[in-house]
């Protein structure tokens, strides 16, 4: 009797997951019993493909991201994956456990959507496409300009999925996006059990019907979801993309549909066979996207070595500071960030700066949002997923490699996001126009054209 309830617990704990023994809080005897019944599938954590190791959990097959040592557990030389170490070490001698007993069915929830906002015409079309995609196995890309309102486009599709008792994953490479999306989904779907997973979060809802997760957290799931939405697919370089892809592939059921959301889809994504594409070329508020201006500013790096900022940039900053509008200045690297910051301080221009390793990042962004700071210098960390009302944007060194077409389109997309301030200035300060700069401008103009401007 007691055992059978523990088996139930195990089924619940392992539902749609693939875990290490150390992640399963159960006594060994119960585990053995379940294994005997054939309810548990075990696989070795690392597999050998050809003569190359591959991690079954994260898909890592980079030779330089494996380590090995004489293992005190199995007394042989054991390899382990360094790529997903933060989720718990996977060694050659360890097994991954997944549930293959009776499958759990989920209740269907009718009319779960409690959101009462209205969709723009572009959103409506996309929303209908999403709804259809949830009903049949399909891959759909929602290509929406920055500020089109991608999240709302998901709502009706999710309602349909929940009505069929489907389980949904929304995966994104960025923790910030998970944190931002969670409250919006929680208030729109109050009856649905939702869990938000990112590094450091606790999974209190192991059986949530809707899971919001980062790349790493997605890796614990296995054949769990009927519908997968991947947000901001292009947010990280290819290598990162690859592990998100692997994680998502493992996490979804074979019959699942996939929906990609992006403003700047990569050519690899667009080349996916049988991919259906729906575009939302207009912003939610109906105004066109601001077109970036190119402003030559000479050899700005040389100028900075002589402790000067390029004068066109200073003129721009001072002009807008007088109008009391918030300003965002993007720079290509952390070292440039520090340098620019000291030079601005010398000119007694009050400002804040943020980068990815900055422990005070969230406070600084909040202060900027509250308009306590009017000039913010940043690396590409703030290129997406953030909205500041009536912000004016400049990029210093826009010709640098970090500013890819996608990055520049995203940066330009920070301007004019609110209906009450739908236009604004976006300037690329450069020392020679790059291909990416041209491509970014062409991309924005094309979307405006398609939007009927």
């Amino acid at each position, binding site marked *: 009797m007691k055992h059978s309830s523990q088996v139930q617990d195990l089924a619940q704990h392992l539902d749609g997951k693939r875990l290490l023994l150390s992640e399963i809080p159960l006594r060994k005897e119960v585990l053995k019993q379940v294994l005997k019944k054939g309810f548990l599938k075990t696989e070795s954590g690392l597999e050998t493909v050809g003569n190359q190791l591959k991690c079954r959990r994260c898909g890592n097959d980079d030779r330089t991201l494996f*380590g090995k040592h004489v293992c*005190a*557990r199995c007394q042989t030389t054991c390899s382990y994956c*360094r790529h997903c*170490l*933060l989720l718990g*070490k996977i060694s050659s001698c360890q097994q991954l456990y997944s549930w293959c007993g009776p499958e759990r069915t989920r209740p269907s929830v009718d009319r779960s959507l409690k959101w009462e906002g209205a969709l723009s015409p572009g959103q409506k079309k996309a929303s209908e496409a999403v709804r259809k995609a949830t009903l049949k196995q399909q891959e759909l890309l929602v290509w929406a300009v920055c500020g089109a309102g991608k999240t709302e486009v998901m709502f009706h599709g999710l309602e349909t999925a929940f009505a069929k008792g489907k389980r949904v994953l929304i995966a994104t490479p960025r923790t910030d996006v998970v944190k931002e999306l969670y409250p919006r989904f929680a208030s729109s779907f109050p009856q649905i059990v939702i869990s938000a997973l990112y590094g450091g979060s606790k999974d209190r809802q192991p059986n949530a019907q809707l899971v919001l997760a980062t790349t790493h957290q997605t890796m614990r799931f296995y054949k769990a979801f009927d519908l997968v939405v991947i947000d901001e697919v292009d947010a990280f370089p290819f290598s990162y993309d690859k592990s998100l892809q692997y994680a998502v592939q493992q996490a979804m059921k074979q019959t699942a549909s996939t929906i990609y959301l992006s403003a700047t889809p990569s050519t690899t994504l667009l080349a996916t066979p049988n991919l259906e594409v729906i575009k939302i070329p207009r912003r939610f508020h109906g105004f066109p996207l601001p077109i970036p201006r190119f402003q030559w500013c000479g050899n700005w790096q040389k100028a900075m070595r002589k402790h000067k900022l390029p004068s066109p940039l200073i003129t721009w900053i001072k002009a807008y500071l007088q109008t009391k509008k918030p300003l965002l200045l993007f720079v290509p690297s952390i070292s440039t960030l520090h340098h620019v910051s000291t030079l601005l301080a010398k000119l007694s221009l009050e400002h804040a700066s943020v980068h990815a390793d900055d422990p005070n990042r969230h406070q600084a962004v909040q202060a900027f949002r509250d308009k306590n700071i009017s000039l913010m210098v940043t690396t590409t960390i703030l290129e997406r997923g953030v909205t500041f009302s009536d912000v004016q944007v400049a990029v210093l060194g826009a010709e640098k490699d970090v500013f890819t077409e996608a990055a520049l389109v995203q940066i330009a997309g920070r301007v004019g996001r609110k209906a009450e301030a739908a236009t604004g200035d976006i300037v690329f300060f450069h020392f020679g126009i790059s291909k990416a700069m041209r491509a970014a401008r062409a991309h924005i103009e094309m979307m405006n054209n398609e939007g009927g401007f």
Partner: protein
Amino acid sequence: MRCLACHDTFFEQPVWRKLLMLESPTKLCRLCELKLVPISGKRCVACSRSLDSLTQAFKNGDQCLDCLRWAERKDIGHLLERNVSLYEYNAFLKELFATFKFRGDVVIASFFAEKMARLYQKDFRGYLPVALPLSQERLVARGFNQSSLLMQGWAEDQDILIRTTGEKQSKKNRKQRMRQLHQNPFSLREEAKIEQKNIVLVDDIYTTGTSVRLAAIVLKENGANKIASLTVAR
């Protein structure tokens, strides 16, 4: 090359010494290596702690307060010849050790092992290197002994010590650590022969110095001559 700490790839300057395999390839990127602080300047002659960063209240002459306190103890105060360490135990090293020991990323040890080898050659040539052991339970749980991995490539772990209790030193405070002196967790393997030998104990961190002294008691009782310790962090 890929940095052992931050996993970023970096470019290594081609140097003849490295191309000819006289030197092993660089393991940490420049930015990460800068975050490690080698102990330099004036240091405590007994435990290698940097004296420059200590206020006057915590040092006296060429020794730190901790070592002066150890010296007051007649029974075990003079068991340890001295401790020599590579780096200051700062936040970066703490995080790196957490990844190495607790998350089990053992390849990190190879970076320190090279540096330990150099220090051993410089300060303890002729001493018998002995890694501080883990208890059997802990060894199985962790899968490896971090101290013997620090000897990788320059010495064979003699495995002459046994540790019985499995509790973690890092979970105890100073008082609790000192109390252990009466119930020594270490013992010597019967077949070990250490009479008149000089021994250097190898460990990852020297914090209060209790562990190495506990091991030293056992070694001394069994006839060892001089006992010192070599650790990565102080």
